[in-house]
């Protein structure tokens, strides 16, 4: 297993009418290389995953070799929002606001099961079932908490994603706007479908005794 390091087919369109050219692909390479290797994280750390994030940034697993040692706690200076930990509903407008404050180009990593999907153990009245209902997510890192190696794998996946971007594709940097009436990016029915009841963990006494 491991990361797929084959050269990716870029599908560059070299017809005279396209805006892709040899110059822009070289420029893409340079810009994406720069961006991928100096992603300044905005650690939105709430719970246990934040401690594993801190351990990843510390000496043994060292995020500095990814260029990520400069934790930017101001969203205005950050590239990637790493949501580490469970997000309750009270925190939802906060993370939404922080995401909106980050300037483009920006990416986000949902670190941990709670940020990815609400984590089956927190399927209750208080926890957002996955932050992708509030902000767009690029990489999901499973685990409770994910090992530092897991987080680094997720970061490397994000770096691969960044390196595949093309300047000519302007839609990549469009700010996703929520639907004004519901304030949600995803249609409400879809959210309800995705977060349906899981198993019998919501019954109080199965035995009835």
């Amino acid at each position: 297993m491991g990361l797929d390091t084959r050269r990716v087919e870029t599908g560059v369109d070299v017809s005279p009418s396209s805006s892709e050219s040899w110059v822009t692909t070289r420029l893409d390479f340079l810009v994406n290389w720069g961006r991928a290797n100096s992603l300044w994280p905005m650690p939105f750390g709430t719970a246990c995953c934040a401690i594993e994030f801190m351990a990843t940034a510390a000496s043994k697993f060292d995020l500095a070799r990814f260029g990520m040692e400069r934790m930017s706690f101001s969203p205005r200076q950050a590239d990637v929002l790493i949501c580490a930990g469970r997000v309750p509903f009270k925190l939802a407008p906060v993370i939404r606001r922080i995401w909106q404050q980050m300037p483009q180009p920006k990416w986000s990593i949902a670190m941990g099961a709670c940020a990815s999907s609400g984590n089956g153990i927190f399927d209750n009245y208080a926890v957002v079932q996955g932050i992708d209902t509030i902000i767009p997510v690029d990489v999901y890192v499973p685990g409770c908490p994910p090992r530092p190696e897991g987080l680094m794998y997720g970061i490397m996946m994000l770096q691969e994603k960044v390196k595949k971007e093309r300047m000519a594709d302007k839609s990549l940097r469009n700010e996703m706007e929520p639907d004004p009436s519901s304030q949600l990016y995803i249609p409400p029915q879809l959210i309800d479908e995705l977060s349906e009841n899981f198993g019998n963990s919501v019954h109080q006494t199965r035995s009835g005794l």
Partner: protein
Amino acid sequence: MSEAFLPVLAGHAEASEVAPPSTPRNVPYRGGAANPSADALRAQFGDAIHRVDVVWAETTVYVDRARVAEIVRWLHDDPQQRYDYCSDITAVEFRDLDRPIEVVWHLRSLPFRRFIRLKALLPKGQPLVVPSVYDIYRGADWLERECYDMFGIRFEGHPDLRRLLMWEQYKEGYPLRKDFPLRGRFSRSEQLRQILAQNPEAKYSMEELTVLEAFNDLPGDMRQRLGKGEQVGE
């Protein structure tokens, strides 16, 4: 330091013949020795003490709800009791919905190394109100606020009883009640919609607004609207 430092020692009021504390072993289910404070309470308050129960060597005293503050103050002030430490204040609702809600106070006496549990029963169908012990223990401040937030129990005499863990405009109810479902009353998308619309941090509370000097400079009609509890937007 000019004076000698003397730490306040737990257990310093006990007589020297009392054995030092040890790990409880083979704790009996029922029928253990009751906390001596239970008898003292009975002697002092008579029929405000409904029942005394000893389960797993912990004494639980069921008291009359209206006289809770008085009883707790006596336990705090009396030199033979000296329950100076409030560990916890919480509530229990049973699955049998006809049973009353029990409000529980966990008190410790550090000088005597004792632990007692007081309970007051709040029958359903009546307003869920108990006296507050904020004046006796400042630690009760947030404990009572949380109890209100989770159960809807009002503590009379608490200066600032607001929601603590949920946001103030939370509409779904009181989460720890047994008729409140685990996943909440509304659908997931509705819960998200509500919190994103209510957006509590964008608005300062009245308490915070009174700090602002500029409050006086606001136009009169705006001050009136704020005074009626309107929340300002971003």
